[in-house]
């Protein structure tokens, strides 16, 4: 049976982000946050909100791209929360997992 087309929702840097569940290879807690393995890289999350199906993804409009240079997969809304859908190949800088920083946290 094919995997459902869901999105993992997470909170990071004051916003809510979504990433296609199919792109997630692993999820582990690290210190106060989480490390999400995607492809050859990893993303960081402050909080995991859950997995949702049926997110209606809108393309990022020119006005957004004009003032925010990050490459994203699109925009959506879940409940009353705006969601930035991440392109797992080019995650925004705010989501990139800093392996060194988190490793230091683990040594304390």
């Amino acid at each position, binding site marked *: 049976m094919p995997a459902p087309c869901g999105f993992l929702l997470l909170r990071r*840097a*004051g*916003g*809510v982000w979504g990433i296609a569940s199919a792109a997630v290879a692993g999820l582990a807690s690290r210190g106060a946050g989480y490390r999400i393995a995607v492809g050859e890289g990893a993303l960081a999350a402050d909080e995991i909100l859950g997995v949702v199906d049926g997110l209606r993804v*809108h393309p990022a*409009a*020119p*006005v*957004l*791209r*004009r*003032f*925010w*240079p*990050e490459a994203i997969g699109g*925009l*959506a*809304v879940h409940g*009353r*929360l*705006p*969601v*930035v859908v991440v392109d797992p190949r080019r995650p*925004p*800088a*705010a989501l990139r997992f800093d392996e060194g920083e988190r490793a230091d946290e683990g040594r304390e």
Partner: protein
Amino acid sequence: MTEPLEAAERREGTHLLVRAGEYACALPLASVRRVVRAVTVHPLPGAAGELEGLAEFGGEPLPVLNLGRLVNAPPGANPAYPVTVVVWVGPAGAREMVGLAADAALEVVHVPPESVVAGDGGLLLGEAPVGDEVVRVLDLEALGREA
């Protein structure tokens, strides 16, 4: 029946006057969808100062821009941005919905096209006298064009 020319010109010249810092800005009324109490905005890390963040409006994602910063207005005495003006930007065939954080929606005014002194060719269409004040007349279609 065809709309009389005078009526069409009057409709095109009808603007919503909005306070943004120390400036009053005239937004084409046809592009204004709604004025609401300031929406809850979620920041976008790394965004330019003009982009306050992302909100939800009517079940749709809504980028919210700071109108004062867009027009380089000096902040007013109470820069709380208590209203969001939801507008359409961009060309008619590819318009998109955007929120403009502003201090207040003031009134609907008529700005005759011939009274507008040329602006920067972009968002600022020009300046025009309204009452005893000079207002910034904005071209919201230009805001949605690719930079």
